[in-house]
């Protein structure tokens, strides 16, 4: 039977190109992650060794379990490091291409700024700025649509959490003006 014409079509003009060059390989990231985990496990092992890793009369001391978990984590990371290191066959696998990285940063950086603004100005202001800014600059959606959507969303969140469910969010100077 013939394929009926698709009725719902959404385009993505800024989609990452499939031939975009790789920024880094999966093997490299795998090795770096394993080294970081190894360093983390060493730090944890040291701290737990200070806490006490021996057995008291009534069983293990507080550091006993975490110490041996650090050792296991360290050993597994070391194994993972050498496994990736020796695995030359997958050296060409891309972890992220430059187009993909651009798109990921397009979300990550605004999210980071959002967290920062939340700390200073409160969650609702940050939420309004994030949604409006993201829609306008990343999504290239018309100003009035972005602002309106963002305002309605933020207001809905405020009504739902603060008023209806009594879940209080971090506030800044602007909410203080409204007496909340």
């Amino acid at each position: 039977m013939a394929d009926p014409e698709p009725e719902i079509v959404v385009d993505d003009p800024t989609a990452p190109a499939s031939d975009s060059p790789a920024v880094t390989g999966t093997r490299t990231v795998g090795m770096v992650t394993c080294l970081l985990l190894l360093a983390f496990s060493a730090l944890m092992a040291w701290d737990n060794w200070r806490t006490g890793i021996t057995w008291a009369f009534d069983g293990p001391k507080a550091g006993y379990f975490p110490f041996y978990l650090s050792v296991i984590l360290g050993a597994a990371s070391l194994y993972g490091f050498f496994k990736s290191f020796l695995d030359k066959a997958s050296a060409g696998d891309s972890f992220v291409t430059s187009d993909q990285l651009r798109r990921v940063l397009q979300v990550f950086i605004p999210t980071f700024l959002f967290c920062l603004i939340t700390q200073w100005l409160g969650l609702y202001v940050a939420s309004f700025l994030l949604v409006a800014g993201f829609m306008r600059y990343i999504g290239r959606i018309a100003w009035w649509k972005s602002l309106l959507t963002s305002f309605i969303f933020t207001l809905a969140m405020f009504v739902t959490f603060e008023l209806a469910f009594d879940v209080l969010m971090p506030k800044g100077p602007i909410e203080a003006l409204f007496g909340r």
Partner: protein
Amino acid sequence: MEAFGLLLHGFQVLLTFKTLLLMLVGLVLGIFVGVLPGLGGPNGVAILLPLTFTMDPTSAIVMLSCIYWGALFGGAITSILFNIPGEAWSVATTFDGYPMAQQGHAAEALTAAFTSSFIGSLVAVLLITFLAPGIASFALRFGPPEFFAVYLLTFCSFVGLGREDKHKTIISMALGLLLAGIGMDTVSGQLRMTFGSNELLRGINFLVAVIGLFGISEILLTMEERLALRGHAAKISLRVVWSVWKDLPKYWVTLLRSSAIGCWLGITPGGAIAASFMGYNLAKRFSKDKDSFGKGRIEGVFAPETAAHASGTAALLPMLALGIPGSGTAAILLGGLMVWGLNPGPLLFVEHKDFVWGLIASMYLGNIVGLVIVLSTVPLFAAVLRVPFAAIAPMIVVSCAVGAYAIQNAMFDIWLMLGFGVVGYVFKKIGIPLAPFTLALVLGNRAEDSFRLSMIGAEGDMRVFWSNGLVGSITTLAIVLLFWPLIAGGFARLRGKPAKPAIGEPE
């Protein structure tokens, strides 16, 4: 028959206007969560958890579990209409569901998917109704050594039976257990791994980690892909529903087999994803007409959907009866229990009858109402996908932050969430599984406590884990499962055959 009486009591708890309303809200939100890209069952439930903080536990669990049922239903919509699995467990549904939509049978495929989801969860709920109370009352006799043995079994089966590289599962699990230990040691009251930080004193909250690992990282991963989509609109008429239902008895073997697979994999930590593939592959293997699979065969929709839903529901059985979650979402519901001040474990069946039976009753009612909602509102939810991702992504970020903050009213947790988002993104891309991490993080303290309490009871004698038949056999089973790949390899070599790949693998 006792279970039946208690179930009726559960329906009594459920049938109030407020609870029914919350159920509807939960189902609709859940379907949204299932349909939207960048949101899935576990993070949807985690993000919406704060809504329930001020509710009584019964209303809260009814709403959250309905979000979960809704997400399970919603995943099928995008798989069939757009060939985009909204959830990992609906990948197998696309194999035959999308070809059916291309041939103009979208409505039939959707009806088949929803109906089989319903049947799958119904079988699993029946299992929970009649099995869970028995298991719980048996587990009431458990002491710390038995509990530790069961935790050990859970962890070991993840390592031994998981299909990822073993060292990656171990990394994920050890990291989770380690992070769970941060903060005050519950047995001795000593501080550990806090490095003098007041923020770390509280420990790393499991739900904050989940919101970061699944919510934030999922958005980063979604952005990497091409977000364009082309799909079919579908409207389900009563005539189509009737024509699919009329043929149901023909497929009873497939439905029953998939339900059984789903229940089994849901209780053991295999998960809905493995269940859906296994259901599909087995239906194909036992079919007389293998070649027609993948070209739009209705059985190819029935099999994976039934298995996925049965598994997703059955995962709640060990959570209710033993306090051990069978899936990521079950782990979050378990986290919720602790937030509401309930102590997960077999005592729930004794001390919180309203809660347990209200939940079980809501599984029946939620699935029936969910079926009616999805059948009648598919076009509406399919249209949600027209909303640009640039509007949805920031809203998901804000919801994640609200969820992370609300758990302990701590700004630090929002930063922690962001950190876990990056960790989740990297881990997913280099193939470190996240499920063992979440499980370890939620169970870590309980496992350690039960170990140390057994040690206090036994005065430091490790033989306590083999002190009676029950605890001895669980501990031994755990160790066998841990080394299962080696043991299976050894058997295969004895018979002179190479080890067969697992049947759950996509072919």
